């Protein structure tokens, strides 16, 4: 089977649109017959990535490659970058502003959740340039 490739654009500073890419990916994976837990895990990881893009990076893009063995995702933004990745990975650490927290975000769970729900997570980030998060979820 040829890999299925999908591409989504995440709008910046628009919380009403956040969740569109993850919703579409979820429907796509369900339609392809992937197990429910895999679909849920990928959707949650992508949603967290979308929210981070909206809060911190003014949007970004998501590239997905699907094979029967693995779902690969690249979450790419040209935001401010992450100065201290190990600190950002700690549960509860957040730099989200107050208005974002009032919407129920900014709990400092975004990146930890992405790691929790994927099998591989690599963060390429450079301050002032942007961040790309490479994710893989294997189909056991």
């Amino acid at each position: 089977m040829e890999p299925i490739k999908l591409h989504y654009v995440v709008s910046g500073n628009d919380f009403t649109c956040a969740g569109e890419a993850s919703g579409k990916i979820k429907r796509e994976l369900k339609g392809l017959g992937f197990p429910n837990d895999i679909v849920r895990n990928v959707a949650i990881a992508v949603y967290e990535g979308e929210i981070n893009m909206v809060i911190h990076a003014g949007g970004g893009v998501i590239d997905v490659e699907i094979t029967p063995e693995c779902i690969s995702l690249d979450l790419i933004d040209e935001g401010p970058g992450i100065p201290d990745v190990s600190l950002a990975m700690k549960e509860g650490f957040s730099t989200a502003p107050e208005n974002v927290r009032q919407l129920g975000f900014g709990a400092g769970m975004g990146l930890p959740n992405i790691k929790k729900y994927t099998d591989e997570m690599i963060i390429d980030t450079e301050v002032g340039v942007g961040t790309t998060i490479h994710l893989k979820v294997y189909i056991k």
Partner: protein
Amino acid sequence: MTVKELAKKLDLTYLSCEDKAAKREINGCYCGDLLSWVMSKAKEDNIWLTVMGNINSIGVAVLTDVACIILTENAPLDDNAKEKATENDVIVLTTSKTSYQVAAEISKL
């Protein structure tokens, strides 16, 4: 138990998708307002108790496959959230009781 039976027992008011309630089974309950936390912890088919009635709450409900959202303490459901709930078959209910009160009642069912 279904959402419809729950709504009747707890005297809840529907804000969306009442027509889906008779067939939606529930299993367990989760309380929380921090959306990432809820995404991480809530389980499929849970009842979700929260005061967050914005469009992102509906997104979280869809992703986690919770059975329904109960907005406690008469927390409002935004218009765009109601629209998204209807589009995605998310059942939203409301009550004047606190999350603690509702959870305590659910634990006795």
